[in-house]
């Protein structure tokens, strides 16, 4: 059983999150601000931290900076700030993921699940055999033609599989629709690139928690698509 610490100054949000997380079978602890959170962390075994940014006494950013010196646990930031710069700051300081308020509870649950899986299961998968590609929580085994996300198998159509394999081989590169088409369909891409967008979208819905804000399969508008290599390496 995993223990999750919820740190937010709004009691209603804390109790709502508690209800969701408890119903999923997690044990929950709560803290009203950063200082309390650090206290709780010092005295309890906590597997994951949900951390609000704007709090009295000690805000989320400072808390994160402090706890990163001692603890190694996944941290998901809860923030009302949706500016890109705030997200980048949080991620740079050491957050593993972020959810912007007002959030969808199901999304929070999905992210919690994903982080815990990666934290507990994927920590050891360092050396991969040939034909197996790993990017972040996604693993593609070309010998068995299977794809797993954070350890859970995902069902893909053959086209989606081919696209994903191409993108995982060349993770980090921007691939234009024409290039993807040529590589997957083995044909000249006259006018057929639009279908790529549809496939990519389906693929994204399957491997992303929030398809509108993808973590892995990003749209580089006006250029193509890119599979983001994991920030954590």
């Amino acid at each position, binding site marked *: 059983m995993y223990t999750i610490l919820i740190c937010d100054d*709004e009691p*209603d*949000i804390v109790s*709502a*999150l508690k*209800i*969701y997380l408890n119903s999923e079978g997690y044990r929950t602890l709560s803290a009203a601000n950063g200082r309390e959170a650090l206290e709780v962390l010092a005295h309890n075994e906590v597997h994951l931290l949900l951390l609000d940014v*704007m709090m009295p006494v000690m805000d989320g950013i400072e808390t994160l900076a402090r706890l990163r010196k001692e603890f190694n646990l996944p941290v998901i930031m809860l923030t*009302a*700030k*949706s500016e890109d710069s705030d997200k980048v700051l949080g991620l740079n300081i050491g957050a593993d993921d972020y959810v912007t*308020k*007002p*959030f*969808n*509870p*199901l999304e929070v649950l999905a992210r919690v699940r994903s982080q815990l899986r990666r934290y507990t299961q994927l920590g050891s998968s360092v050396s991969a055999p040939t034909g197996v590609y790993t990017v972040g929580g996604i693993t593609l085994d070309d010998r068995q033609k299977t794809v797993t996300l954070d350890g859970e198998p995902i069902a893909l*159509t*053959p*086209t989606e599989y081919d696209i994903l394999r191409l993108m995982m081989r060349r993770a980090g*590169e*921007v*691939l*234009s*629709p*024409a*290039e993807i088409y*040529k590589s997957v369909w083995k044909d000249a891409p*006259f*006018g*057929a*690139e*639009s*279908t*790529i*967008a*549809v*496939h*990519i*979208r*389906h693929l994204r819905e399957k491997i992303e928690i929030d398809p509108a804000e993808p973590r892995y399969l990003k*749209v*580089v*508008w*006006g*250029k*193509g698509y890119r599979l983001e290599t994991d920030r954590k390496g």
Partner: protein
Amino acid sequence: MKKLTLGFLTKLTAFVLCLLCLAAATAAAAGLLIMGEAGTLHIPEKHLRENTLSQYLYSVMDDVVQLAVQSEDGASARYNADYSNLRYTVELDGYIIDTNLSDEHFAGTGVSLSWKCKLTELCKPAYIDPGIQSLVAQSRQPVSSLRNINAVVHLHLVEPLSFPDVFRTVDTGIRLLCAVRPYLGWIVAGGYLAAIGLLVYLFHAAGRRPGREEITLNLLDRIPADVYLAGCAGLVVLLLSLCIASIDRLSHSGGLALGWLIPAGLSALAVLAVTLGFFLGAATRIKRGVLFKNTLIWRIFSLLGRGLRACWRGVCFLVRSIPFIWRTALLLGLILLTDFAFTVIMINLRHNEGIELCYWAIKSLLFIAAVIAVAMNLRAVRQGCRDLAEGRLDARVDTRRLIGDFKAAGEDVNSIGKGMAKAVEERLKSERMKTELITNVSHDIKTPLTSIINYVDLMKKEPLENDTLRGYVEVVDRQAARLKKLLEDLIEASKASTGALSISPEPCELNVMLQQSAGEYAEKLAAAGLTPVLEHPQQPVYIMADGRHLARVFDNLLGNACKYSQPGTRLYLTLKETGGKAAVTFRNISREALHTDGDELMERFVRGDRSRHTEGSGLGLSIARSLVELQGGAMKLVVDGDLFKVTLVFPSVSAAAAAQALQESAPEYADAVFSSLDPAAIAAPETTEAETVCAGTDAN
């Protein structure tokens, strides 16, 4: 101490001492010079005395002879043995005609002088007394041969010189001179040194008074300097002439009228005193800095200057108070009048070419200078206006060098600039504050909204028997979601409209962009019963834009199309590039009749259906327009019946320029993108349009 050193008595004493030192030193120097020249500096006192007294005896010789021949009494009245040291005998042709000796021999020792000559060398025959003439005639010769009379004069000074007369004075002087003779050099040096020391003190002390820090002017110093100079100069001239006259008298008397020495010496001393006094006064004035200011000439000129300045100011005021047009007319009239007057004068002078040429040259030069000055002024003002017109509100016209009305115009331009800059700044500030307010309020609303969404979701999960209640929960859920969307749109709209977004333009391929957007919306379009039709040129069209923001524009427009289109119609997405402009057109058929025009639809919170019952914030088009404009494009909306047409126009860039820009900004992407390009497609400007119908379903 100061009181003592700067006191009046001290200064006066120093002044007198200084004068005396100067006088003594100068006299000694004169003595040295004269005696050195005469070679009498080292001869023994006895010889010097005898020589000098002999000269004096020679000087009185004329006097004695004239007195002797002119009157019966002879010279004994003046040179009486009872009160004169002089003993004399005058012989004419052997006859002693006059003597003051009691016996006929000189008695005692002393300086003697005997002189033989013709009588006429000593006095004119006319002066010779008739008695003497007859006496001489009786004796030997007629009067007509008076000139042949031989005269012998014996002069003798009786030693010791017991009577106070000129000889004794001279004798005393010579003795005194001989006494000081060895020390003359010392007197000169000492006197001048002392004088210099005293002068230094006097010049230092000039104008200073005990108990006062500043330089104080006395009564004399308050007299205007030039008047003072004139007075002093006059006094000096007067005194000098007195001195010269005295010396003149002295020398005329052959050094006998020694009494003249006193006025001569005194006046010389006075000249020295006046000169020294003048220079001390001048020093005081210089120290006070009023040497030139306190002069009559200065006062007169400054008075004149002030008067002239007042006149000029009056004229200027007068000219300024004349309206501009009249002033110009007046100036031109003056020029014409001058020309006319000159011409009339020239006719009267019968056309002197030289003067005419000079006049026209001067006039032309003045005219050219005036035109150039006006042109330069005009340029400065013009530049200021252009700066304003081009938005450089901090630019200012340098009005220091401008003249007249141009100066006024320049100042006006400057104040317009200042006013505009202030207005713009205030506008920006208020816009920024508005954006901040909206953002902050939105953030504050977000927290309670999170709770609402979460608890509504929890409520939905609870087993509710009451169907009505479940319906209510649905409404709250839907409205909460809508509120969330509205908030996000509001923040976005406020940021986009105030330009608070960071835009990083990169080359963006519009063909790809359209395909990506259409692909993203494939399901939604299908759900709305719309068939997307993509039309774009085969070769890529590049624009400089920020992909994320541009995607938001496309997202809003496609979302709008989904929401408001008539099901079963087509959505045309067209990309065209003509003349350096890339245009993307969205065309769809509206479900509801649009009773409004395009521009109004792009305003915030305006929706075509007016009923406001569908989802959406009414901000979509406003955000889209702001974002397009931020990226240097233009968005146009046309409503033609039920046809709803949005056109986005961006300046396009060539593929080569795009590749270069991309290489500069993000080299790692450039290869990936451009390696896939068909070089032939770039080279050949083929305009065959590829038309793709997206079925909106998975190709698999």
